[in-house]
């Protein structure tokens, strides 16, 4: 993702505040039984100690529906298991105060509809992306962003999961997805699938005229796309670090 930090050696600022998205495991509690939690936690960690040891962890109390639970005991149990709790989400006021006393912030609870953001758009300018049935998609782990209007020159669309465009993608635009990209129209802009490194991501389009195609950072510009692959419905995937364009 583009950032605006350009540190210069001489007069660079000492720091800057930034907001970002980090994926951290969260411990979604369904029980208030500390013994049971500790037991299950230790079992889990035994399965993959390298993954869990010294890992940060968010304590999510939202499923407990304000049942009583001693936060201090819970935090001790997690620390003893070798993980670092970094905050709580949900819970009662008392529980949040108890967390604060342990220098753990209480993060804002997410509402039902916002629990999973269906879509992130890289540019403020692009508001056209519409997701359909966001409720349904919440249940699945892979989210698909559906865009029904043409993506015009200069617009950028970023999807955290798959991206399906049921319109054309104009020259001078850029579509990016962490998953697959489907374009049911002419693809004239840039299409980058698997932008977070997913090498299994693919690009499907019904008419390939793209300026650039990329999967997990392996890209090809228009000039390097052979003529016989152009103006045809294709799929693009990665095989041994090589981009394969295949007619479908």
């Amino acid at each position: 993702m583009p950032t605006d930090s350009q540190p210069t050696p001489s007069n660079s600022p000492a720091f800057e505040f930034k907001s970002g998205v980090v994926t951290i495991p969260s411990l979604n509690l369904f029980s208030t039984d500390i013994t049971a939690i500790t037991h299950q936690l230790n079992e889990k960690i035994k399965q993959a100690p390298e993954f869990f040891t010294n890992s940060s962890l968010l304590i999510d109390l939202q499923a407990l529906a304000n049942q009583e639970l001693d936060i201090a005991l819970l935090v001790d149990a997690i620390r003893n298991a070798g993980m670092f709790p970094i905050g709580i989400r949900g819970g009662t006021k008392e529980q949040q105060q108890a967390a604060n006393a342990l220098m753990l912030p209480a993060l804002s609870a997410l509402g039902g509809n916002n629990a999973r953001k269906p879509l992130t758009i890289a540019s403020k300018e692009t508001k056209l992306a519409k997701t359909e049935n966001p409720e349904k998609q919440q249940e699945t782990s892979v989210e698909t962003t559906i865009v029904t209007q043409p993506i015009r020159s200069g617009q950028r669309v970023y999807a955290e999961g798959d991206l399906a465009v049921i319109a054309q993608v104009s020259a001078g635009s850029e579509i990016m997805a962490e998953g697959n990209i489907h374009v049911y129209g002419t693809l004239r802009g840039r299409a980058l699938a698997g932008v977070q490194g997913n090498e299994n991501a693919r690009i499907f389009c019904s008419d390939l005229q793209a300026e650039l195609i990329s999967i997990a950072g392996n890209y090809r510009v228009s000039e390097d796309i052979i003529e016989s692959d152009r103006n045809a419905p294709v799929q693009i995937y990665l095989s041994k670090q090589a981009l394969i364009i295949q007619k479908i």
Partner: protein
Amino acid sequence: MARIIVVTSGKGGVGKTTTSAAIAMGLAKKGHKTAVIDFDVGLRNLDLILGCERRVVYDFVNVINDEATLNQALIRDKRCKQLYILPASQTRYKDALTKEGVGKILEELSKTFKYIVCDSPAGIERGANLAMYFADDAFVITNPEIASVRDSDRMLGILSSKSKRAENGDEPINEYLLLSRYDPKRVKLGEMLSVEDVQDILSLHLLGVIPESQSVLNASNSGTPVILDEDSNAGQAYADIVARYLGEDKPHRFIDEDKKGLFGRLFRSK
């Protein structure tokens, strides 16, 4: 409530002002009270095209700054009493326009006018953004060449995301394509994009094709909107466009090279 139309393109020199003048005159001639506003502050041209440059006292920026009332600044056309022109200021820059000021003027005009035509400046900066911000309908002018088409595409993206309607989540702006300076002969020779090519790239409803015509230049130089030149093909093209916009069903003309008469037209090769 008035209908606000923005005439825009992104690229310069494609015929925005010519079109604004022609469309506004066409709507007024159909009996609708119409105002046309020049948003090209600093590069004022609309008054020349409409032949009222000698009658400009106050301008758009004066009204925004409360230095004049709207009625003082509006110039009534001598040929058509239903047409009023709000000229741009030639001595200022586009920063003189504010969203609040423009909004206020459009609101006031909306009370008495049926149509408000906003003549956008080229580019995608302040003047162009404000011209399209309040629009209900957009006439996107494109020349049949690739740079113009791409700039129009960019403008369409801005229309669908930065307008008031987009910001409020209202129904989107109606977008219409106007292809100007079209020359079927050169299309045939492959020197120009065809209507199909442009529509393929922009996928937009075609409101009309305006043929490349000497009459446009003549009209501009004489301060007469080309739509008043009823013998010229460009004038007829604009009359068709106004009629189509108002809901009349007019077949497209000037797309193919034909001087073959009715028979030839019926059996068009394409």
